[in-house]
């Protein structure tokens, strides 16, 4: 306890000294987020300073071991850091599919050399990753995927198509599910890592209803993927043909991230802010809905905290992340419906300067994907019904 108090004081002082005031504002749009990667540029000096300070301290991935680029914090210390960052409203220094998804899978399934090689690059924001799971015919039924890797001895030749690959056009590398055995549905998928600049990889952006196009169709035409990147550094995670286990493990982390369990913003009430923005008065029925929402949001933030606490000590049911994903994303959609209602006609403006290019309506539309990406709400409910409640049938 005393140690933790000392750590808190130390953390507070470090944040005070290193987190610039500009980095203590809520993230408003994509521009405010630093994703790292080969072609990354910083929006401003504050963003760079904050990222570099965190990187040097291991705070882009505070709970990872030091040898992999983390700070080696214990779970209670990591929680203190999270709380202290939330207290000052600090932005995440680095957003990265490498941190949220691939990293945990490598920590769990990777070889030592592989971890040293990839995790450090992820922690330092050097490689920007994308996720090649979904295919046009394989969404919720992901295991039906068809992209095929033909075994050529020391490499595979990969052919097929992926879809909904977020930021495929901006990513340096892809972690990708590829069928390597056509006879085996579950035990015929390999979890591969390869460079998006490989010959035969092409991407084509998909325009979304939010007017943005963060995702792509991704095409593989005779892409040569080596089986190894050096001594003890296989180009796949886990074992060949056993990538489904890795994929499922990773999806657990992806869901945790999308659920917003870890985000102070998603757990906070919005009634007070929206009422202030509306000039202090909202229709009483809307006020009542906001109050009901705040009850749910504050309760969900307690759930997020409990979930993370339990995950850290292995007390959480493996399917808990499905429940969190379901509840968190449905809540976030409701949040943005209320933001739109309280905002009135201002919230309809699509590209005015005052509304930062229509940030509110674009965000509202974006949230509709929350209950689709990473597995739909219906699929989450199926999993909860079967794995937690153990209800019978299919």
């Amino acid at each position, binding site marked *: 306890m005393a140690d933790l108090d000392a750590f808190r004081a130390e953390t507070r002082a470090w944040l005070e000294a290193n987190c610039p005031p500009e980095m203590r504002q809520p993230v408003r749009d994509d521009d405010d987020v630093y994703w790292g990667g080969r072609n990354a540029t910083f929006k401003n000096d504050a963003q760079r300073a904050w990222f570099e300070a965190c990187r040097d301290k291991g705070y882009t991935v505070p709970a990872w071991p030091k040898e992999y680029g983390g700070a080696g914090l214990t779970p209670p210390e990591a929680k203190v850091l999270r709380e202290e960052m939330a207290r000052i409203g600090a932005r995440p220094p680095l957003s990265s599919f490498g941190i949220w998804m691939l990293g945990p899978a490598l920590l769990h399934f990777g070889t030592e050399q592989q971890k040293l090689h990839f995790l450090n690059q992820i922690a330092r924001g050097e490689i920007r990753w994308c996720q090649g799971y979904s295919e046009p015919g394989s969404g919720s039924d992901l295991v039906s995927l068809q992209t095929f890797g033909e075994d050529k001895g020391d490499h595979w030749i990969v052919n097929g198509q992926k879809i909904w690959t977020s930021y495929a056009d901006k990513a340096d590398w892809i972690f990708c599910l590829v069928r390597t055995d056509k006879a085996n549905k579950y035990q015929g998928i390999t979890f591969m890592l390869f460079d998006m600049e490989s010959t035969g990889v092409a991407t084509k952006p998909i325009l979304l209803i939010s007017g943005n196009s963060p995702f792509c169709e991704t095409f593989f035409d005779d892409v040569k993927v080596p089986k190894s990147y050096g001594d003890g550094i296989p180009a796949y995670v886990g074992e060949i043909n056993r990538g489904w286990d890795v994929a499922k493990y990773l999806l657990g982390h992806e869901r945790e991230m999308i659920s917003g369990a870890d985000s102070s913003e998603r757990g906070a009430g919005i009634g007070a802010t929206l009422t202030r923005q509306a000039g202090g008065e909202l229709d009483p029925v809307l006020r009542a809905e906001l109050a009901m929402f705040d009850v*749910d949001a504050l*309760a*969900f933030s*307690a759930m997020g905290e409990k979930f993370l606490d339990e995950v850290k000590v292995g007390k959480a049911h493996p399917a808990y992340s499905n*429940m969190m994903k379901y509840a968190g994303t449905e809540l976030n959609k409701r949040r943005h419906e209320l933001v739109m209602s309280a905002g009135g006609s201002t919230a309809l403006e699509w590209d005015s300067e005052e509304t930062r290019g229509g940030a509110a309506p674009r965000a509202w539309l974006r949230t509709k994907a929350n209950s689709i990406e990473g597995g739909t709400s219906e699929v989450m409910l199926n999993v909860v019904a079967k794995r*937690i409640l153990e209800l019978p049938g299919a």
Partner: protein
Amino acid sequence: MPLYHTDDQAMLAETAQQFMGEEGAIAKQLRKWRDQGCKDGFGHDLWKQMAEMGFTGLLVPETDGGLGMGHVEAGIVLEEIGRNLTPSPFLTSSVMAATALASASDEARGRWLPGLVSGESVFAVAIDEGAKHRPERIATRAERSGNGFKLSGKKDFVVHGASADMIVVAARTSGADNDEGGVTLFAVPKDAAGLGHNSVRLVDSSMASHLTLDGVELDGDAVIGEVDGGREVLGRVLDAGRVGAAAEGVGVARGAMDRTVEYLKQRKQFGRLIGEFQALQHRAAHLYSEVEIARAVVIKAQQLLDAGAENASLMASVAKAKVGKAAGLAVKEGVQMHGGIGMTDEYDIGLYMKRDRALAEFMGDVYYHADRVARLSGY
């Protein structure tokens, strides 16, 4: 504080679960007393057993003969009470009255607490004046008289009022009905002259009183805390009651949900177990999520109360409101998914619906607490 039980708390939970599951079970307590038309609505023998287990004095300081534990521990017992629909004066006596008495004089503590710890005494708390919870307004008057006070007014929804040896009464020693200040808490013994009860059975078979205070004479040492300065103590009593009722509500929700999920695994229609129908699976899974979230915020609120944290009161209201929503859903879905059998007295699921309704009103309903969340958040 991580949001799960420590090893000691987990041990207490196991003990409470076993005890309530056996001694406090629905057939052994709720149905028995209900079918006998018991005037208390609960069994004194069980109350004494709870004392032997150490439950009655959980929140009483060790220096007063109790265990000196916190709201997390009290909540553990309450959740099992809720799960088994065990009728008992635990919430009113061991949680709310005990919280009030923590601010009482040495004499008052010496007079009342030993009986609570030993399970000889039962206490009630009289706050509401009207059908809805509105503690901001207190009209019951307490006038100085000799070296004591004279109380006049009426109180409603005083749970276990007629069974109680002592009732904690919130009255006004100065100011207007809606004033923040001027409130004082009194420990009113059951034999006080001028105290009248109209005791009624509620939908869940528990007993509550409409209390009349017709010039009830009290000594000066009946005052709990400061004269005119009772709001703060009352606030603590209310928060304890809210978080306690929320913990019990989580138990009710889980009890109803578990029974329902079990039923889905047994009942066959259309040649299949009804639990195979996705329409029901999704509703059950949604219900599970809501109950888990409610459970999380209850533990959060309990920990904040125990730590005396600044936002404890806000979280107490969040907890009461969230549990109100989740438990309400659990009992309604429970009855519906049981089909026709859920409407019968023989099946327990209907008893959960009745208990939920009474708990939902106790210490403020969803609407009251959602509104309070808004006000405390500044809108």
